[in-house]
């Protein structure tokens, strides 16, 4: 999926609460297709039906705790990505969603504490793992991802990573 990631991403924030589950991100009834636009057409439909019309390319989704809990459907991060979301920030993520997002090349940042309101302009620095709220001037730092995930994200996702390397590679510091 896609290209090398930009190091800096700027976009408007859309803020939601805790435990946004994958059925809320993309209901199961829309997951059975290879037409990726279908996912985007129904993204967050049961949570915020107007989101799909409001979202602008580059916007950043902000969740609370346990973002993406529930199903293993990769259609969830794909729905956000195809709808134009450039990154997801949350206090922490459900494990499978976090892997899936990185695998399809959607940057995800775990930021344990932040002050961000819907409409705030954000700048995300992927290399530094930092989020700046340009509207308020406040800066927040993200938890460092495992090196293997950084490398996958760097290639724009796991498809490109494996196309390039043919296999997984581990850095020495990861044991």
């Amino acid at each position, binding site marked *: 999926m896609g290209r090398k990631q930009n190091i800096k991403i700027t976009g408007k924030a859309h803020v939601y609460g805790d435990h946004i589950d994958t059925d809320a991100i993309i209901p199961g009834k829309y997951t059975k297709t290879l037409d990726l636009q279908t996912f985007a057409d129904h993204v967050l439909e049961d949570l915020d039906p107007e989101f799909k019309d409001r979202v602008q390319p580059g916007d950043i989704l902000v969740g609370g705790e346990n973002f993406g*809990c529930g199903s*293993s459907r*990769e259609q969830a991060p794909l729905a956000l990505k195809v709808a134009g979301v450039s990154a997801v920030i949350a206090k922490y993520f459900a494990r499978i969603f976090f892997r899936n997002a990185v*695998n399809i090349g959607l940057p995800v940042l775990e930021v344990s504490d932040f002050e961000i309101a819907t409409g705030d302009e954000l700048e995300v620095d992927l290399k530094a793992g930092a989020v700046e709220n340009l509207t308020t001037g406040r800066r927040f730092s993200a938890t460092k991802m495992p090196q293997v995930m950084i490398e996958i994200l760097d290639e724009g996702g*796991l498809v490109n990573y494996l196309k390039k390397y043919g296999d997984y590679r581990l850095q020495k510091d990861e*044991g």
Partner: protein
Amino acid sequence: MGQTIVEKIISAHAAKNVHQGEIVIVAVDGAMASDTTAPLAITSFRAMGGKAVWDPDKCFLVIDHAAPAPNERISNLHVLMREFAAEQHCKLFEAGEGICHQLMIEKNIVRPGHIFIGADSHSCAYGAIDALGAGVGSTDLAAVWLTGKIWLKVPRTIKIELIGKIPMGIQGKDLILDVIGKTGIAGATYQAMEFCGPAVSALSLSGRISMANMMIEAGAKTGFVHPTGLKLPYTFTAELPDVEAKYHRTITIDAAAIQPMVSQPHSPDKVVAVDQVAGKKIHYAFIGTCVNGRLEDLQMAARILRDVKIHPHTRLIVGPASRQVFLDAVKDRTVEILLKAGATFIPPGCGPCVGTHSGVPGNDEVVISTANRNFKGRMGNPHAKIYLASPATVAASAREGKIANPLKYL
């Protein structure tokens, strides 16, 4: 340093001793994908340049989530899966054979000590037989097809000690609902769970599968029910933790005090004892899924519905977890009892649990289901309300037309 079960199984696959927090690449023993996840996995596999899967004997495809196909779009995805399976010489389970997790265990594909990766979040169910089952998405699964490997972070473990004797009529489902109510929906995120203690040895395989299956509803990456008392149709060596294994936390549950439990809309962790919501009118009862569609579950429902009819304003849908379960339930007349009570049988598969077909609820309808999730819209309609419970509680509720405690019928 002592090791937990997850540390032991990952160590055996990483060819070195590992402990929580480490990141490792391991060879896996098997990979499974369903019709929700396989089509995207096939796309990713081809995009990676994949020509042949690493080991056709270890790759399994299952048509279960929308099976038989409810429309031409999904039917064509099934065609894609059949063509891929034929081209790659790997096993495909057809529509109607059963639910992926049930088949992986019932057909003796997943075995104790395995690392088995499923492109379905409930793959943690394999912990029922002391295997490390972990759910992933389509592209991770495609990478397993390509390399035979996966990268994993060794999780820390929550120990859940079940003491006391499990009362009659209390099922594995009630126990796991109680635990999820205590941990919350994110209480085990990035972690493994281990169920142990004297009450575990009395659990049936079916009850163990219900418990392991729902560990993901607390966020767990994987989990295990200690194999003490586990019976399988083949001989096996069970992996137990070291005495000095290090646990993140321990929760002790007095099984003797557990009552029939219910999850309320719209989250599996909104758990209360059934008596707290008893009397709530229901429109639709569903018994089935990978959590509770086995013979023991159907037999439990038949005990409660023998020689009676379900309440006239209620409908009951039953989906056996596999063709084998269906056949066994036909042979011992469980199916007959349930049909006479007014049940509608659907083909073995995920059915209404995932909201695609075979029983989508209407607006404002109240459903009581044996499934594992009740998120808003889960069954295909965001305006329905879903309660989760054991087969006994769902059957008793179908009988009364309202949420009911099953113990009076047992």
